[in-house]
């Protein structure tokens, strides 16, 4: 029983962390058909900005998170204006933006490496102590992560469903041309989506680094996982991505318990390969009808 509580608790924490960074990726793919390979570097940047704000500038944790969200949001905006916008009209946009963001991600990661060095650092934003449920210890940090993740997801859901901006984002994702004909400035929507995705990546990066420490290349693994989740859910499907993130987080902690940590990611990836072969558009993705 204790084991089950422990496994479920760590699985939910993992799933919540993945969900926050996955939402950003899914939003970007849904509206721009863009896979942002610089996402991992933005994740790391968020963690480091928070560290810098709290240790060097001496700001409180909340300000650190805010600053990280602003900086990463601006980086997302920069990626839109420097890379995505000049290429939007080109025929091979999906391939080209993929390659371009791989390049930009490498640049960002190495800039972080130069600024902060290669040695791992602990994330100062951390809650000590643990809640005790029966005989099981659940660190406050995990509870905080879960709470923040739920708050972020609720905020994004509110934004998408209740505001004008959200409606514009959804309309653009559904049908770019129709949205444009209805007077939505899709350029602005794209910029907003990429900035939002950057800010979400910052939060996710801070959460991940508070558990595993900061490294310039820490974003690679979570990014690949976030993509895996997006693919399993069907690219661009935001709610499917949240569900898939929670399921995969739980699955990962179960596999870690049963088979051992070193096989968890490999097993997940094998699972994804099987899903993709069985359902090429993902679990929740609808197969598109292509007009010739």
């Amino acid at each position, binding site marked *: 029983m204790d084991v089950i509580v422990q496994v479920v608790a760590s699985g939910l924490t993992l799933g919540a962390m993945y969900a926050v960074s996955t939402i950003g990726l899914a939003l970007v793919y849904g509206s721009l058909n863009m896979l942002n390979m610089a996402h991992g570097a933005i994740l790391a940047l968020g963690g480091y900005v928070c560290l810098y704000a709290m240790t060097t500038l001496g700001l409180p944790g909340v300000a650190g998170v805010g600053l990280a969200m602003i900086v990463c949001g601006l980086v997302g905006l920069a990626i839109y204006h420097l890379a995505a916008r000049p*290429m939007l009209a080109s025929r091979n946009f999906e391939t080209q933006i993929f390659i*371009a963001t791989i390049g930009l991600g*490498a640049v960002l990661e190495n*800039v972080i490496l130069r600024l902060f060095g290669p040695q791992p650092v602990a994330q100062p934003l951390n809650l000590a102590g643990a809640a005790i449920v029966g005989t099981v210890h659940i660190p406050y940090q995990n509870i905080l992560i879960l709470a923040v993740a739920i708050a972020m997801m609720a905020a994004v859901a509110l934004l998408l469903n209740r505001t004008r901006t959200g409606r514009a984002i959804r309309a653009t994702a559904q049908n770019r041309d129709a949205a444009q004909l209805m007077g939505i400035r899709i350029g602005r929507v794209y910029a907003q989506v990429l900035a939002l995705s950057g800010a979400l990546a910052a939060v996710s990066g801070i959460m991940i680094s508070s558990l595993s420490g900061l490294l310039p290349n820490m974003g690679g693994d979570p990014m690949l996982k976030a993509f895996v989740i997006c693919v399993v859910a069907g*690219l661009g499907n935001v709610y499917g991505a949240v569900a898939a993130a929670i399921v995969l987080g739980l699955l990962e902690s179960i596999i870690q318990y049963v088979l051992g940590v070193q096989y968890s990611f490999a097993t997940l990836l094998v699972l994804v390969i099987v899903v993709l072969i069985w359902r*090429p558009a993902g679990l929740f993705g609808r197969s598109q009808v292509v007009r010739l």
Partner: protein
Amino acid sequence: MTPARRDVIICLVAAAALSLLPALVGMRYAITQMTVFFIWVVVVTQWNLVLGVAGIFSLAQMALFAVGAYATAMLGYYFALPMILAMPAAAAVTVAASVVIGLACLRLRGPYVALLTLAISQVIYLLVVNDTACFTNPPSGCMPFLGGVRGFSRFGDLGFRALLGSKWYIAHYYVGLGLAVLAVLFSIAIIHGPLGLAFKALRDSPGYAISRGISKFKYQLWVFGLSAFFTGLAGAFYAVQFGAVGPIVFSLAVLLFLLSMIVVGGMGTIWGPLLGAVLLMLADEGMRELGDWRDIGLGLVLAVFVILLPRGLAGLGAGLRALLARRA
């Protein structure tokens, strides 16, 4: 003169010129770097068949390269197979692996293919690195079946060290040159041949191509299988050249470097990837002094080229020629 004949002649003339190089340049470092360059030429010309000519966004090519390298090392290490037999055997294994990957990606499109192939490479990498159980126990210490983090070494060579002594690297230069020439000729034959036509038709207008009776199933498996043979052979030669294989062949930095060559040179053209390989090897040498800045430079080169010159240097050349023709 047909374009195919022109390309073959260019290739042979360049090969003849390059075969004189070891006689002119005595520096061992330059010759060894040229050998590495030939290995990358083989990989990018074959990757270009999948990525540029067939338009399938596969990132599995480096994993296939690694399969070739590892298969060679393992055949040599466990079965003491002579390298001259292990290399073609490894290439055959690579072809089989590639066809399986092609099957897995058959129903996917665009970015899904990229993610799936990236995931496959990552799975292979993780399996290799996380393999810690001892398979054999040689005097040098525990040896996992897949080599683990350390990888393989001392699995034999092509015999040039015994034959030529310290000059063995010159023999390897010619082996590399031979492989590169064969790979380029192979890609010329494919691109100008009926297979290339089918690949391009499926890339440019899948619906039309399929309705004209071009089977996507058949040709996708063909392009994955064909492009894997020389890639596996290049991996095998890489293992022999360095005398060691480790998980570094899976690293994202190497993948990025080779992808940049294709993108900078121009996807889907015969000479573009080659041109890109020359340029990036030179740039890499130039930036060697810069240390950490090197990766920043490479990333910038990749991004700037995709954004400003999406058709690469070869596309720029074609554009200029069209401009001149209009003026004339």
